[in-house]
């Protein structure tokens, strides 16, 4: 290890690495705190060449390594399982080249998602993926996990907006896939690197697509007496062929916490609210907003409010995006799940969640990307009571199993990480997983890069008791 540290020091210099135990501790977990492991060293490269040389050094000394952005993963994506070298890309935060004419930009992995959008704002553009953590999470992290966000309903997830990457392979080689020009011939390596959760290598720079801002928005707040009315509205809006920019549901319990945090003026007696946003051109947008309003009213909305100023809209979205954090006001610990169901199954899954909550005597609140069918039930508990922890784990597992049963998935945007690794075998057959392992081996044959992530290790038994874990504590 001493010799590895010396070579790392030669590469990045003493000011760009952390080796003291007390400092390394901060890197022992990310937004998922159930499992912790201290890395042996954290390095802060500033160039692709440095990343490549770091990877070389790790391979030479046979020490595992993994990249880290801002450490906001809710699935333990940044957890250094087995220790090793954490390659922090937080100092690589240059926005190199924004080409408005060709609608693309070259940026480094450590650029914070929201900075990019802020950078583009004066020119009338934005970066479409807008995960709730966008004020902190990095583009590199978005690329690794194929992040979503409320507005992916209309605009797509990260992979739909990444055109190419500069990538350090697990053997240290620097490659470029795709680029600023669309349709380069060959396999869509960019498409498969996005969302590979760091198991294919380290994405250091990305060519991303930038999106023109819509001319205008209509942001509506549908107030419903029951969750059922709200979910029926969602299916009917989608079924009617309307593609809103975003369609988000919040239930009564989460509304209370958000009101406490943001003083928006949410109706606290409502069973659920829907944030329904349409965007685009001024022409016709009111017609679209009216169609949505009438569907909501038809399904029992007791009122549909308009966020009629930009300030109100901003506050509403801020409240929505920071909902997970605000749950800290409801309980000392909570577990956020990330299931997906076909959109027409939303009323069903929410009723199931309610039943499961009652069965395990747990409070569960809901705030989620309804338009995508991406649910985020938040299970509240107190980590100091082992019995509650056990019940939360079991209830989470049951919810996710139900998602699978109705044809859904166990993660819509948080990723598998270490948290959901045991669910892979429930979603996929051994043959499917074997193909995934073959694909990983094409990029990362030694598995020295981000080991023990995404794919269950061959031969490891699947413990039902570990199903579902706390996403944040």
């Amino acid at each position, binding site marked *: 290890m001493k010799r590895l540290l010396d070579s790392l020091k030669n590469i990045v210099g003493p000011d760009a690495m952390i080796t003291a135990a007390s400092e390394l501790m901060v890197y022992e977990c990310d937004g998922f705190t159930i499992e912790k492991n201290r890395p042996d060293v954290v390095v802060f490269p500033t160039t692709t060449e440095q990343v490549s040389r770091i990877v070389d050094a790790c391979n030479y000394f046979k020490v595992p390594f993994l990249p880290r952005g801002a450490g906001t993963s809710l699935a333990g994506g940044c957890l250094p399982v087995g220790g090793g070298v954490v390659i922090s890309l937080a100092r690589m935060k240059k926005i190199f080249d924004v080409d408005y*004419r060709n*609608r693309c930009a070259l940026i480094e992995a450590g650029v914070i998602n929201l900075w990019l959008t802020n950078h583009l704002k004066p020119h009338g553009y934005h970066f479409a993926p807008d995960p709730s953590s966008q004020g902190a999470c990095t583009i590199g992290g978005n690329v690794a996990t194929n992040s979503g966000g409320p507005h992916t309903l209309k605009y797509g997830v990260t992979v739909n907006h990444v055109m190419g990457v500069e990538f350090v392979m697990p053997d240290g080689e620097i490659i470029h896939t795709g680029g600023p020009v669309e349709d380069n011939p060959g396999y869509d*390596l960019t498409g498969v690197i996005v969302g590979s959760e760091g198991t294919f290598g380290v994405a250091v720079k990305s060519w991303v697509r930038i999106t023109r801002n819509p001319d205008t928005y209509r942001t509506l707040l549908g107030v419903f007496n029951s969750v059922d009315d709200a979910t029926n509205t969602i299916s009917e809006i989608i079924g009617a062929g309307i593609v809103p920019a975003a369609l988000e549901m919040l239930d009564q319990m989460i509304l209370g916490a958000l009101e406490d945090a943001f003083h928006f003026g949410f109706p606290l007696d409502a069973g659920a609210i829907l944030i329904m946003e349409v965007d685009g051109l001024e022409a016709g947008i009111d017609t679209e907003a009216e169609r949505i309003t009438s569907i909501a009213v038809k399904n029992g909305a007791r009122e549909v409010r308009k966020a009629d100023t930009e300030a109100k809209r901003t506050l509403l979205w801020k409240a929505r995006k920071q909902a997970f954090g605000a749950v800290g006001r409801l309980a000392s610990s909570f577990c956020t799940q990330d299931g997906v169901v076909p959109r027409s199954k939303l009323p069903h899954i929410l009723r199931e969640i309610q039943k499961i909550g009652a069965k395990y005597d747990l409070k569960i609140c809901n705030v989620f990307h309804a338009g995508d069918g991406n649910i985020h039930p938040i299970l509240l508990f107190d980590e100091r009571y082992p019995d509650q922890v056990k019940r939360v784990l079991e209830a989470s597992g049951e919810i996710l199993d139900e998602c699978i049963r109705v044809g859904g998935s166990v993660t819509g945007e948080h990723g598998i990480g270490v948290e959901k690794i045991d669910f892979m075998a429930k979603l*996929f057959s051994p*043959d499917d997983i074997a193909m*995934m392992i073959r694909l990983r081996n094409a990029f990362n044959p030694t598995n020295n890069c981000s080991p023990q992530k995404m794919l269950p290790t061959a031969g490891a038994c699947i413990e039902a008791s570990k199903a579902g874990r706390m996403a944040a504590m």
Partner: protein
Amino acid sequence: MPLSESLNLNSFQTKTPSDVAEACDIIRHSASTLDAIVPSGSGSKMHIGYSPSRNGVILCTKNLNKLVDYPARDMTVTVQAGILVKDLTEMLNKENQRLPIDDPYPGESSLGGLLATNTSGPRRFGWGTLRDYVIGISILNDEGRETKAGGRVVKNVAGYDFCKLHTGAFGTLGIISQVTLKVRPNPEASSMVLLSLNSANVESVLDRVHTTKTRPVAVELLNRNALQQPLFKNLDLSSDYCLFVGFEHGAEAVKWQTETLAPELSDVPGKIDIIHGPSDSAIWRNLGMFQSTRIPGSPLTFKANIPSSKVASWCALASDTLPGLSLQSHAGSGIVFGHLPGDVSRQMAFDAITLLLQKAVRYQGNLVIPYCLEDWKSDFPVWGQVRPDIKIMRKVKESLDPKAMFNPGRFVDHI
């Protein structure tokens, strides 16, 4: 010299399994005999790429064409890959939905073929390409097993995204047997604004269309030769270029955009026409079909991909190099299709293609040849300039198809 419409597959036997199990048997058998497998749907794109480097069988998926599940309210559809795109379109249309991908072979293409070749058309500017719509995929792998990735929900990050990998892989990594797609509602209205342009104005007009207040879903540029083709003959356009700007939205939005764009460009010399009509009207279809058109005697069709901002200058260079060239560009996306004139010699064509390829590569793009005379393929850059990431592509190929059974040699760098 005879015009060849297909790869050299003379000694290939065609097998048409009636279900997935039978297809898997065929693969397993070929695996044991080390025969090549050339996947085929309806056969509309069998001319693309190099001829296979080994003999074997053509595995035709046209009978794997069942609808598996169409929960219209979820706006997803799961079908077997051999389904004809037109049948899928018809089915979706009944629910007032669609897959907004242009099919250059309407009536012929299978969905699997469209996917394997990552085919797209004018609408890609507004609606994206197939990679944006495939959310689940099943693949018959080298061991004759059906493996899947993705799922049936619109948002899903569990496991690696094989959907992207197989889209545009030309069947070299396995056979696409089943696909789940996101679909879109049919647009309420559509319109097309046509602008006749002389060469000198193309670049500035394209720049202006880029910043127009409207939001086109298609920006198509055709040169004079292209406008003379039967597809567009009845439009009676004879300027140097014609720009087609297409809109598809709600009725009010389309009306507003149509009425806004024309005055925005009213100072450009040349006439402006407006064609109203549904999204499946002839003008849209014909713009989508140009790439697959065979101009009599034309020995070669290329597809270049360059930055959108370079379309005008690159097209000018191409026209200067080969005056008889028929060109269409999806100008918003930087894609240019060209059909060479019939009277061009092999050497002239080679020199021109080499020059245009170099220019495209300098812009970080490329140029491929979806169609040319079969015997030209030996020295023409069929798949453009090979890029350094070919190394990774080879590793992926070796890992997923270690016996090189699927379309051996057909794709990029004879992979």
